[in-house]
């Protein structure tokens, strides 16, 4: 039997969280949420989700970037796929550092409003890739013993 995959949404927009939670639940995911970076990090440490969907502009306009750095500093979450979904480039036109430039330690950046079909597709892809990488790592680990 396939284990239900967990997705953690860290976003302060309750409408977005409600809509995306419903979307992900209908696709078969178990969904948890937190409305700020600190709570999100705590929840991520406890849930160890299969995927994190992270907003940037929450209580502070760069909160998600700091949260992402902290997520990556937790060994158990270092390989967890993270999708950053934000409208920062539309809301802060002075912020011109391209998310594709390699500075953002996320697996994917999606501009808001998020395309639901793409979100479902990318979530499945990233979770599958992460599971495959984890499986290969455990095979290598057991072969080395």
């Amino acid at each position, binding site marked *: 039997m396939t284990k239900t995959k967990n997705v953690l949404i860290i976003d302060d927009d309750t409408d977005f969280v409600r809509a995306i939670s419903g979307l992900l639940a209908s696709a078969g995911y178990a969904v948890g949420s937190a409305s700020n970076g600190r709570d999100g990090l705590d929840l991520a440490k406890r849930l160890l989700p299969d995927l994190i969907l992270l907003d940037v502009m929450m*209580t*502070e306009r*760069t909160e998600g*970037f700091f949260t992402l750095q902290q997520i990556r500093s937790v060994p158990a979450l270092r390989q967890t796929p993270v999708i950053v979904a934000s409208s920062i480039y539309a809301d*802060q036109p002075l912020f011109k550092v391209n998310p594709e430039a390699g500075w953002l330690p996320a697996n994917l950046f999606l501009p808001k409003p998020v395309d639901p079909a793409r979100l479902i597709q990318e979530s499945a892809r990233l979770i599958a890739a992460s599971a495959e990488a984890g499986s290969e790592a455990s095979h290598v680990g057991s072969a080395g013993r």
Partner: protein
Amino acid sequence: MKILKIPKSHLDLFVSVLPAFGELYAPVRRGSGYAFDRPAAWSDVELKYPRTILPPR
């Protein structure tokens, strides 16, 4: 050496990119004093800390 001048109001955006290039340390409040440490959020950064003669190491 490169000197960059940016408005203080944009400092949080600039700083949010810096951890990609190394560990970020900034003055943060610790108890009744201040220390240079890794901020967990931009609001942790206290720019109005008492300056010292010698730089932090």
